[in-house]
């Protein structure tokens, strides 16, 4: 009897267990279909500023991206911010915008969220609801939150929930999304720009060719000056011989005139060795100007001496300030024949103090 009762009890337990399992299985199917929303196909919340306590603004936007899974008629989108986020209790202060959305996210086109308006439609605690219009499955929608949300004050991972809703507040799709908040998301870059003076010559000699009594020989060289010197720069020139000197004959084709602030006139057939300087103004606050002595024209040029003489100056910084040094020379009938007439010009440049 006891054995029979035990057997019967065992059967009952097994039957009850099977019945229970079946019942809960059926119940779970019912809930899955009608109570829990599906996961959104894609969802992202991208913070332009992940720094703790940052208030969303037009310069610190939160990009919300949503791609629906379920075919339904969406009317609202709800974001439940994790505890720690400060959510403005006035819905109109939670501002949104679809202006300036990126064209794509991970190579997928972004469509502006339809019907989003300019602010949230309602707020309840951490839940913020936005009005939207019907969304298409498989389309990635986006919008910016530009105000009303403040990042948590403590760095860490926070879970927000994004849900699409029908007009009757039935959840359609819903996904949880992890958001990282960091103590500082910007690197301060500091740098020093040292004061500098760049001095570059286009070449290292001025070839004059064969000098004659019937024409004036010319040759030039350019100097490029780049400096951030706010007081500008100055340049001086010195001639080794104050003329073109021939070592073989001992004769010199002299530079004519004196340094008196006025260029000296010259003509072919008359011995001369004159310097003409032209300045070009690059960018920067300074304006280069040529010393009147060397501001020659066709037929006149400054006198070269064995002392340093200022040729040009600038009153401010300059990039690509240029000086063109042109030598005009000719021999007279009395100059001795030789092919070694030469000179060394030393140009010194320095920033003004």
């Amino acid at each position, binding site marked *: 009897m006891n054995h029979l009762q035990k057997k019967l009890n065992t059967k009952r337990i097994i039957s009850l267990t099977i019945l229970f399992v079946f019942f809960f299985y059926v119940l779970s199917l019912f809930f899955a279909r009608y109570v829990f929303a599906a996961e959104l196909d894609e969802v992202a919340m991208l913070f332009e500023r992940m720094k703790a306590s940052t208030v969303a603004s037009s310069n610190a936007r939160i990009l919300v991206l949503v791609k629906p899974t379920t075919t339904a008629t969406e009317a609202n989108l709800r974001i439940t911010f994790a505890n720690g986020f400060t959510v403005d209790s006035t819905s109109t202060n939670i501002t949104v915008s679809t202006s300036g959305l990126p064209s794509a996210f991970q190579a997928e086109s972004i469509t502006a969220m339809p019907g989003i308006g300019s602010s949230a439609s309602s707020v309840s605690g951490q839940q913020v609801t936005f009005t939207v219009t019907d969304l298409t499955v498989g389309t990635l929608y986006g919008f910016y939150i530009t105000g009303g949300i403040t990042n948590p004050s403590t760095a860490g991972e926070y879970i927000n929930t994004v849900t699409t809703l029908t007009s009757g507040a039935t959840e359609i799709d819903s996904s949880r999304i992890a958001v990282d908040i960091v103590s500082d998301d910007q690197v301060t870059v500091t740098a020093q720009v*040292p*004061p*500098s*003076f*760049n*001095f*570059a*010559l*286009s*070449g*290292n*000699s*001025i*070839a*004059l*060719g*064969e*000098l004659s009594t019937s024409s004036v*020989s010319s*040759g030039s*060289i350019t*100097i490029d000056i780049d*400096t951030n*010197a*706010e*007081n500008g720069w*100055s340049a*001086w020139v010195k001639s080794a011989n104050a003329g*073109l000197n021939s070592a073989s004959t001992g004769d010199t084709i002299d530079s004519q005139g004196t340094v008196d602030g006025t260029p000296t006139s010259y003509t072919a057939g008359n011995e001369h060795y004159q310097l003409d300087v032209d300045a070009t*103004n690059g*960018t920067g606050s300074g304006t280069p100007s040529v010393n009147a002595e060397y501001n020659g024209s066709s037929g006149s040029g400054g006198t070269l001496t064995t*002392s*340093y*003489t*200022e040729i040009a*100056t600038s*009153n401010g910084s300059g990039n690509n300030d240029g000086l063109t*040094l042109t*030598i005009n020379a000719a021999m007279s009938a009395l100059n001795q024949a*030789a*092919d*070694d*007439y*030469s*000179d*060394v*010009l*030393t*140009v*010194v*440049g*320095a*920033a*003004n*103090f």
Partner: protein
Amino acid sequence: MIKRFISLSFILITLVLFNANISFISAQKKDSDSLDKIDQQVETVFNSDEITTPESGINVTISPLFINLFTDPGKTVESSFKIRNNNNFDEYFTIWIAKYSLVESAERPVISEVSSDDPFPNWIEFDQREFKLLPNETKQIKFKFTPPDTAALGYYYAIVISRIKEISLQGRSAVVSASPAISLLAEVNSPYAKKEIQLLDFNTDKVFYEYLPVEFQVKVSNTGNIHLSPFGDIFIDSINQDNVGKLRVNPTSGNVLPQMQRIYTVKWNDGFPFREKKDDGKEQLVWDWSKANKFRFGKYTAHLILVYDNGERDVPIEAEVSFWVIPWKLILILLLFLFFFIQGVRLSLISLTAKFISSSRK
């Protein structure tokens, strides 16, 4: 006899040796004296064969722009500068010292070679007087400045960097050797230092302006014996409003050397509209509507407050200048517009009145 000979020989040898020693000491003294004067002879680091002839012109960047040194007599101060070779070939450089000659009442000093009796170059000791720079290489050159106990007040020199070797002289040409320089303003503390600035002129380049900018010129003279860097502000008042503009004078701390003059130029262009100089040198009128409330019209007065440190306190210098801004073309156009508008209204009224009278007569 032999003893006497030996004694005399000994005395003679001693005298010769003593004399030789005196000559040696004298020679040594002479060398030392010549060192005290000038010796910019550079210890040769490179063999002449080692130094390649440069392919093209020099292209270097130096930093800083100028160096201010301040020390006591006999006390060493250290400083440094950097030089970069921007060429794509090796460069061999040498350092030499040039002097700024002060020209009384001039605006800028003139650079010149140091004379043989100028001791200043010997007060500077570079860690390298000759050096090589690879393409795009930057080198820091350190130096020590040790003025003697007798040194005092200001010394104005330049550290000049030149190539050791330029291309050889060729006929019918001029070799051009370029040398960038770093100015060196050294002040050696002295109880005889006189720090004094005098304002020579505070003026505008014109009395009447159509539009801004207004250019102020602050001309000062250093009547002391040490370089100074005065600074200050210009405050601009209009007839009905104070402080419509504030401008900084000498924001870049430009120095005035002793016995020299300097003009600081300051521009006021905070107005609507204002003229701006383009890169090609031509002027254009800029209509920045965000500054529409800064339409300048009428008489303005600029007050200058310039300050310099005389070693004990800041000494203020004050001056004032007035000028006018009258945008006459703009006003003329407005008046013409107003005239034609009033005329138009007047004629319309006359016409309407005539019509009204004629219709009422009918």
